Each structure stands twice: as C-alpha cells, then as structure tokens.
C-alpha cells in the first residue's frame, strides 16, 4: 500500500513537470516580447533575453502614435460591436422562424446555410472584391460590417436553431393568445431565453472579428480606416529593425485582449465548448 502511494506521488510529480514545461513554452514567448518592448534597439540585438538596463517607456508612446493606435482601436471596436449586434438580432429572428414554421422555403434556406459552412473564405474572396469593387463599396467600414453579417449568419442561425427547438411552445403561445404579435412574442418571451446561445455567439464572433485580418485587409484600403490587426501588420512591416518599438506595438495590441479575457474567462470557455457542438 505504501509503495503504491509512492508510485502515485512520483506519477503526480511527473505530470506536474510535463505541464510546467509545456506552460513555460506558452509564457516565455510573451515574456520575451514584454522584456524587449522596454529596450533600446541596440540592447535587443546585444542580448534579447536580458532584462532592460533602463525602462524605455517612450517606446510605447512612439509606437502608439506611429501606428495610430487609438484610431485603429476605435475602428476595431466599432466594427466588432456593430457586426455582432446585427448578427445576433437578425440571426436569432431568422432561426426562430426556421425552427417554428414548417415552411418549405425555411427548409431550403436552412440546408443551404448548413452546407455553406464548409466554403473556405479563400474561395469567395476574389469574386467578393470584384463585385463590391464594381459597386464602389470597398474602403468602407459599413460594407465590412455588412459582410460580417453575411459570413456570420449561417453559423449563428445554426446555433440558435438548435437551441430554439428545445424551448417548449407553451410560453409564446400564451403570449400570442393574449394578443401579442409574433414580433413581440419573440423579443419579449423567446429572445431572453436564448441568453446562453447569445453569449456563446458573442464570444465566438468577437474572437473572430476582432482578430480577423484577411477580410479587412481586402476591404479597408486607406490608413485611417485600419483595424488593429491591419495597423499592427503595416507598422511591424515598416519597423521590423527597430525592435523595441516593434515589440511595444505587439504588447499594445495584445494587452487589452488579455485584460478583457481575464474577466470573461468563464464565458469564453463555456462559449468555445458550446460552440463546438455541431
């Protein structure tokens, strides 16, 4: 019995060690970037692993100014929030009709949407740019938001649809008997019940849209319209050799996400898990 215990504890130590080694692999890259973001370029070249001799905080101010940080942050914020809001509103309504009314048109569109989820973005991006370019709708934040609605709809409808099916009909029927319109019944009774799906959707879409690069890089052309991913990309490309500055730019982009996600941790994990059920 005693020997068995010792074997167990050796196993536990071994497990802990494996996890510790793995996690250092995850922490160190970020730590190295943070350390170097406070250095002069010469210091970075000399030894990228040493702590800074003196903290050059001016790297941050300079990076923020040159990459138009606050402007891009604001752009990203507006695009993300507006896109998610319209995806949630219109997809939940669509899914409601799809789930509750057995019309053949619903079945047709639902199957097209489900099938469309395997289309890679790369196989629609070229015609997308051509069509919206010829309509003069490129370089416009609102076109981008509209496209996020288009690309986000199928998955959102799919997610809501599954959940609405599991809600009993009685509640909304009572409201309809009391004289409410379908529109009122949906928003007052059904939509509040969809809260778990709505949170899942917000989390997944926020991760997608906030961090998206390819679509905005095709749509947003002028510098003042850039999102954070775009301005980080262009800034880094120009200042690769100015290491301290480049590292500060990376920290500036990553830091807000880390802070927000620490508060949202529980929801993010639940969102990933629930969103994975297809």
């Amino acid at each position, binding site marked *: 019995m005693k020997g068995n215990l010792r074997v167990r504890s050796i196993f536990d130590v071994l*497990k*802990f060690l*494996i*996890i510790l080694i793995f*996690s250092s692999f*995850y*922490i160190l890259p*970020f730590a*190295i*970037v943070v350390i*170097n973001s406070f250095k002069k370029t010469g210091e970075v*070249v000399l030894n*990228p*692993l040493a702590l800074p001799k003196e903290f050059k905080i001016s790297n941050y101010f300079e990076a923020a100014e040159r990459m138009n940080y606050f402007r891009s942050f604001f752009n990203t914020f507006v695009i993300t929030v507006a896109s998610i809001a319209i995806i949630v509103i219109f*997809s939940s*309504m*669509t899914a*409601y*009709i*799809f789930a509750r*009314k057995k*019309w053949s*048109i619903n079945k047709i569109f639902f199957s097209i949407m489900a099938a469309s989820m*395997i289309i*890679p973005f*790369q*196989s*629609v*991006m*070229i*015609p*997308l*740019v*051509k*069509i919206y370019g010829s309509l003069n709708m490129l370089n416009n934040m609102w076109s981008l938001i*509209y496209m996020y*609605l*288009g*690309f986000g*709809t199928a998955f959102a409808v799919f997610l809501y649809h599954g959940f609405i099916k599991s809600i009993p009909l009685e509640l909304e029927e009572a409201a309809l008997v009391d004289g409410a319109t379908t*529109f009122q019944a*949906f928003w007052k009774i059904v939509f509040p019940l969809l809260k778990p799906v709505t949170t899942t959707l917000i989390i997944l879409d926020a991760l997608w849209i*906030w*961090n998206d*690069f*390819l679509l905005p890089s095709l749509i947003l052309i002028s510098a003042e319209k850039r999102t954070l*991913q775009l301005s*980080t*990309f262009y800034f*880094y490309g120009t200042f690769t050799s100015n290491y301290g500055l*480049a590292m500060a730019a990376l920290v500036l*982009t*990553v830091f807000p*996400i880390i802070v927000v*996600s620490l508060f949202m941790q529980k929801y*993010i*994990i639940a969102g*990933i*898990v629930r969103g*994975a059920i297809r």
Partner: protein
Amino acid sequence: MSSYFSKTKLFVVFCGISIIAFLTVVIVPFIYGIYLTFTNWDGIHKKYEFIGFSNYIGLLKDQVFKNSFLLTLKYVFFTVIFTNLIAFLLAYLLTSGIKGQSIFRVIFFTPNLIGGIILGFIWQFIFHNALPYLGRHLGISLISESWLATPEKAFWALVLVTVWQYSGYMMMIYIAGLVSIPQDLIEAAIIDGANKFKVLTKIIMPLMAPSFTVCLFLSLQRSFMVYDLNLALTKGGPFKSTELVSMHVYNEAFLSQNYGIGQAKAFVLFITVAIITLIQVYLSKKAEVEL
C-alpha cells in the same frame, strides 16, 4: 390569400435581412466565382473572355501551385495530428487533479485570443533573435541559426507555431468531453481490475469519440485555411518554400493579377477541403456508432 400574405410578411420581417446578406456575401460570390474560373479576367480590364477549362488545365502544369498544394497537405497532416495529440494529452493531465489546473488551462488557451498576425510576429522574433542568441551562447547548433532562414526548418517552425496556437483550443473541447464521462463507469472498471491504460483506451477514448470528431473537423478546416500566421511568420519564404495554398491563391489573384487562375485555384481548395472534411466526418460518425 391573406394568410399567404401574412406568412410572406412574417418571413420578410424575420428572415429578410439575414438571408439577403447571406446570399449577397456568400452564395452569389461563390457561384460567380465558379463562373470566373472559366474566364481570363485580369482584374483591371473590364473585358474578359470565356476560355473554358483552360485555367484548370493550366493548373496541372503549374509546378508552383502543385508544390504549394502538396506542402499544404503535408502541413495539414502534421498540424492536425500534433495539435490533437497534444491537446488530448493536456486535457487528460489537466483533468487529473493537478494543482492549479484551472490556471494552466487559461495559459494554454491564451494564444487563441490573439490574432494570427500578432502570434506570427511574436514567433518571428523568437526564431530570428531569441533562439539563435540562446543557441550560440549555449552551443546548441540546432537553434543557433534562425529557423526561418532555411526552407525545411521554416516549414517546421510554421507547424510548431500552429500546433502551439490551436492545442489550447482543442484542449478546452477535450476537457469538456473528459469531464462529462460518468465517474462510476471508471470506478467500476477499476474494481473489475482494469489498469489506468485499459481505462483510458477501453472506456475514456471511446466515450470521447464525439469530441474527436469535432476537434478533427475544426483543426482540419483551420489548418487548410491558414493565412495570417503564414504571412506574419514566414511570408511564404525563404524562396516561396513555405507558401501555403491560401497565400498562393492570394498572391496569384491580388499580386500577379491573374484573377481567373487564382479563382480556379481557390475552387480546387474548396473541393479539397469539402471532400476531406466530409470523409472525416463520415468516418468519425461511423466510428462513434461502432464504439
């Protein structure tokens, strides 16, 4: 008649906008894209001609495309396998009651909060600067030169960072699967004399089949479509040796202005992804039933 009218009204109000957006952003470009593959449009001239299957026939002779396509298959193969192996291992260890396991879960998940562009730049610095410094000072020749400077090593750098990024995501899904396995089933097996390895392979793994289906699907789809990370980490280099098919399509269309050819390549990508993911889902579902 009035009920038909009210039905139509209901449909338009509730579904109108999302269906229009879906059709105009996904379906119309997709179908129009298929048409474009049969033309020689260069992106500048208004006029272009219908040229039949020439673009597709051209692909068969396009050595650069073939290389990029094969490279992508190789990349997908290794990233999917390593991502899922590591994700499952981490999930298994982090549900076995290790101290601070919830903190470790958060750490492993963190890369998924950050865009591929940023992750690519972070690792570019690690491979270009940090590791060579370490390698030279500790005399480890494997890392004393930047991995991004030679084709073979740049490929593995790309695989490594992808696995690093996605393992935490898949780990979360595996953890959810592991946690939902009824404990009494495992206890019963142990009482019947099963050892830990038997419990893992005969009870846990079969019950985890749905999680494997999802994770394989997600990792397949994501690694086929990777672009940001490829762009930021290697930019397809050195000498186009790490140009995955996504980037190849982008460059063909938007840099070389061969929109028709680019779209034909994008369509081949679609067919490949569709066939492989459908086969995977079919096989996984079949395995789920059998187990």
